């Protein structure tokens, strides 16, 4: 079970029997549009506030995942969810709708893999038969809370990232068809003193590297043991830094298998994203949509997802604190 210092190996290997990804209008224009279960043409999703729109997307992702697994809501023992809204209201309000016993999580953009890790533990230890893990983010709702009003004319530097509008959800079960969660490495909080909230990639890269290093060390693996290693939302800047740091540590991952969800989700013609995507939904939607589909097709068999999160608040930033970051890694594998 516990392997090395901070890694869990799941002996039974909980199965992701179903997963769902929901996206907004900007994600619909991206290269991964085909991999979403549901895409909205309207940021408001027919609601009268962005916060309600985010909650709606999270509910849709959960309902779609439950339906794809051939289950009913009552079959789910626990709902593990988190998001970026103040006091994680999107998750808690969605939990109210779902009426399933609920754990609220906060790991910023690492919440997707934090939820999947804890859900896998619950299923592996037979504390639950079915667990639903989900997360969401909404671009204008997040911008409003963390930065400036949506329509405010502030110039974003080239290191800035674009919060993904969407949600992702996955059902974990003890048995069934689908990729298995074989292990997870829980990250430490790493702070390299970066203070610029427009440069999250540089702030989060060391946390990703720390967790990847720990994962390899605890399990005695190297980059070549995976078909794909995807970080959560480092973007182009953070990804380049992480690759460089790993190379310096003598753990270089071949560039053809090392990628980042924040780079994958948007195309090069979507210039407004600057360095790439970010937000809870970034790693969740890409993993539960795109990567899950590729695993089902057999294009990928062994994947490591390293979801990265920046644990700052608007208050901590204004009080000139640096940005502490975290990353959680989850290993997924196609095996019977």
């Amino acid at each position, binding site marked *: 079970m516990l392997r090395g210092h901070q890694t869990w190996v799941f002996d039974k290997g909980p199965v992701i029997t179903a997963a769902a990804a929901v996206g907004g209008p900007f994600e619909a224009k991206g290269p991964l549009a085909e991999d979403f279960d549901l895409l909205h043409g309207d940021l408001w999703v027919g609601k*009268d*506030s*962005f*916060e309600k729109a985010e909650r709606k997307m999270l509910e849709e992702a959960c309902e779609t995942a439950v339906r794809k697994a051939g289950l009913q809501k009552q079959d789910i023992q626990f709902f593990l969810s988190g998001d970026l809204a103040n006091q994680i209201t999107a998750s808690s309000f969605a939990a109210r709708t779902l009426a399933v016993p609920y754990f609220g999580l906060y790991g910023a953009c690492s919440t997707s893999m934090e939820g999947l890790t804890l859900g896998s533990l619950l299923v592996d230890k037979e504390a639950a038969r079915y667990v639903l893990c989900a997360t969401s983010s909404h671009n204008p709702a997040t911008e*409003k809370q963390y930065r*400036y*009003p*949506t*329509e*405010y*004319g*502030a*110039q*974003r*530097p*080239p*290191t800035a990232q674009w919060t993904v509008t969407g949600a992702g959800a996955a059902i974990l079960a003890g048995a069934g068809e689908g990729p298995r969660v074989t292990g997870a490495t829980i990250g430490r909080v790493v*702070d*390299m*003193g*970066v*203070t610029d909230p427009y*440069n999250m990639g*540089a702030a989060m*890269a*060391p946390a990703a590297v720390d967790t990847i290093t720990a994962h390899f060390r605890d399990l005695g693996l190297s980059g070549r043991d995976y078909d794909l290693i995807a970080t959560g939302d480092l973007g182009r*800047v953070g990804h*380049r*830094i992480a690759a*460089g*740091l790993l190379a*310096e540590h003598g753990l270089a991952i071949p560039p053809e298998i090392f990628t980042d969800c924040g780079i994958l989700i948007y195309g090069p013609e979507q210039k*407004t994203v600057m*360095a790439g995507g970010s937000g809870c939904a970034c790693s969740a939607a890409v993993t539960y949509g795109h990567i899950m589909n590729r695993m089902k097709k057999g294009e990928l068999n062994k994947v490591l997802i390293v979801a990265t999160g920046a644990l700052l608040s608007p208050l901590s930033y204004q009080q000139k604190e640096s940005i502490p970051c975290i990353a959680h890694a989850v290993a997924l594998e196609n095996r019977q």
Partner: protein
Amino acid sequence: MSDQKKKKLTPVQQEYQAFARRSEPGRPVLLNSVRAFLAGGVICLLGQFVQDFFLWNFDFTEKTAGNPTVAVMILLSVILTVSGVYDHIAQWAGAGTAVPVTGFANSIASAALEHRTEGFVLGVGGNMFKLAGSVIAFGVFAAFAVALARTLLARLGGS
């Protein structure tokens, strides 16, 4: 980064930040300055046309034409803000659209729009000066300080 800030960082953090900076795209300062100069200039030119329009067509002097001119510029900025265009122009223009009165109007209109869902009193009313408030506070204080200095100097010079 200032030396003051650097002192607080551990050697490992300093080393990392130097390493990270090599992978970061630099801010295009020169290009941004040129764009800001052009965009700011265009806005001022537009303002000049509006002022001349008031001077030629109505009974305004160069001094009194200022008020309706600013009102028109503010209105234009608010229309561009609510139609979702202003922030895209600003991404290109940078300080060029932020410094003139249009930027000030944009900061108020965008905050008012953003907090509309929290109601008119606590939402719009309470938040519309969220960004502009500090400009007003320090603007008023600066005006006071300058006026005080001017008065004192005039007194000293006059005696």
